[in-house]
């Protein structure tokens, strides 16, 4: 069962008239795109050295908290950046 916010998202995108699996497909696709965009925007904002450090953290399976702290220390307004990526993509999809 979807949460309220998920239902809100589906309505926001105008997907409420679609079958459930199609809703899921589009949301899954959007999740995929959001993740990719977050990754590429993150990498583009890291210096080459920090990219190496980030890669090393991933290689060594650093925990989510450690990764989060590292990125927030090295990317200005990182939290804001992530939220902006989501909100922009949602707007784009909504208007598509």
């Amino acid at each position, binding site marked *: 069962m979807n949460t309220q916010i998920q239902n809100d998202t589906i309505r926001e995108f105008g997907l409420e008239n*679609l079958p459930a699996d199609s809703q899921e497909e589009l949301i899954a696709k959007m999740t995929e795109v*959001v993740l990719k965009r977050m990754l590429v925007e993150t990498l583009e904002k890291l210096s080459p050295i920090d990219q190496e450090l980030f890669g090393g953290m991933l290689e060594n399976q650093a925990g989510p908290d450690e990764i989060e702290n590292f990125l927030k220390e090295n990317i200005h307004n990182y939290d804001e950046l992530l939220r902006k990526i989501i909100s922009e993509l949602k707007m784009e999809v909504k208007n598509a």
Partner: protein
Amino acid sequence: MMSQEIKKETLIEGFQSSDSARGFLDAAVGADGEAAAGFPQEGNVDGGSQKELERLEAAGLFQKLEEYVPEVPVANEMIPINVRISRELESYGIKKYPDVNRTVGFDVREEKSETGELRDRLDAARRAYIAKCDTGQEKSSLLMRIFGFGADLGRFNAELQEAKSNYEKALEAYKDAVAGSSAIGNGYDAESRMGFLDKREYLDFAGAKDDARLEAGGWSEKFGDKAVGSGGNFKNFLIKYLREAGLYAVGSGDGVQNDVNHPSAQIGSDADDGNVGKNSAANGSEYAVYPGISGNEAASATTSPSEMPDVSEIQVAEVTPIEAVPAGNEFDFEIDMLAQQYRESAKNVHSPEYAKVYNDSVVALLGGRGVLMGEIMDRNAQEYIHENTQSDTVKLLDSLRKSLAGDAIGLKKLDPRADEDMFAWSARVADMMRKRWSK
């Protein structure tokens, strides 16, 4: 050595069995570890080792699986077939699965037979178009900008237009076919079906662009899987943002709960399966730099109109070159060209060309999606304020206000005199004009 051919029924049976993924692989490779016809004749699948799986994938195993997937009856299944297959494969330790991006969510079999070929063409045309745009980025190098574009630009423009045209035609053909088909979304109104296709195509295109960026940065192999693949801790830390936005682990009618570790939360995601940078739209193409365009910066650069003085009352005391925003060459080449056209026309705001170029730009850019309109406007605003004085900018703004029913779009509320607000101002102008023209 096994010599039997791979039987469709065997494959299906494999999937429907309690140990379906194993059954499938056994069917493909042979329980005795030897490959069946059509697959490599060496090695075996030992516990789904990644090396073996990659070998099988290279041999076309998953393509063959995909061919058979549509034959699996799904009518009475609450869980979509792509979800079930993915779960099965993942339960077996296989991170790769057939191209679920190509599923439609209604009946894969029917789409495959009726419109699948057209969708394949669309995928190819999209790849070609994006690749051509990337090539354009290379051609828009600094030297090209300084010394002009010359004959090479003309040739490139022709190729770009052809790629774009092919893409648009392929998209139109596919949508027409779907509109006339009962295969996809039968029982649902045409508007819903087209809306679904539009949004899916938009996401496919956006995903392919981001794939290209990852490829161009050389990051796909190094970061993709580890960062946002299954279990990637970069992704894990992002989950809270996704959930907050109502995006992650959207359960469907199959009763899937909102469990971030549930396979359904990962369906349809190249990012999740470690294929970042390698999705269907990006495969097989050479991507040059395709840097990101922030898109809707204009939309985010808002200021309350009540905070702005009336521009008609502004007296420009001095003429100051504005260096706030470098033009840069980090934008998509096509957008850059269109923005340049637009800017030239905007200098003569009373010219009929003004509206025409703008509208042509919008239409040309993939059906006038808002983000691209925003990109054009952002670029225009940035370059304009980079290359023009405040005085000229104010004159242009005032002229625009008069010629474009400025009262309606609120231009008179802006104050371009404040240096620190120049970018916000230009972005806002872009946003307002976009909204104005989109009406």
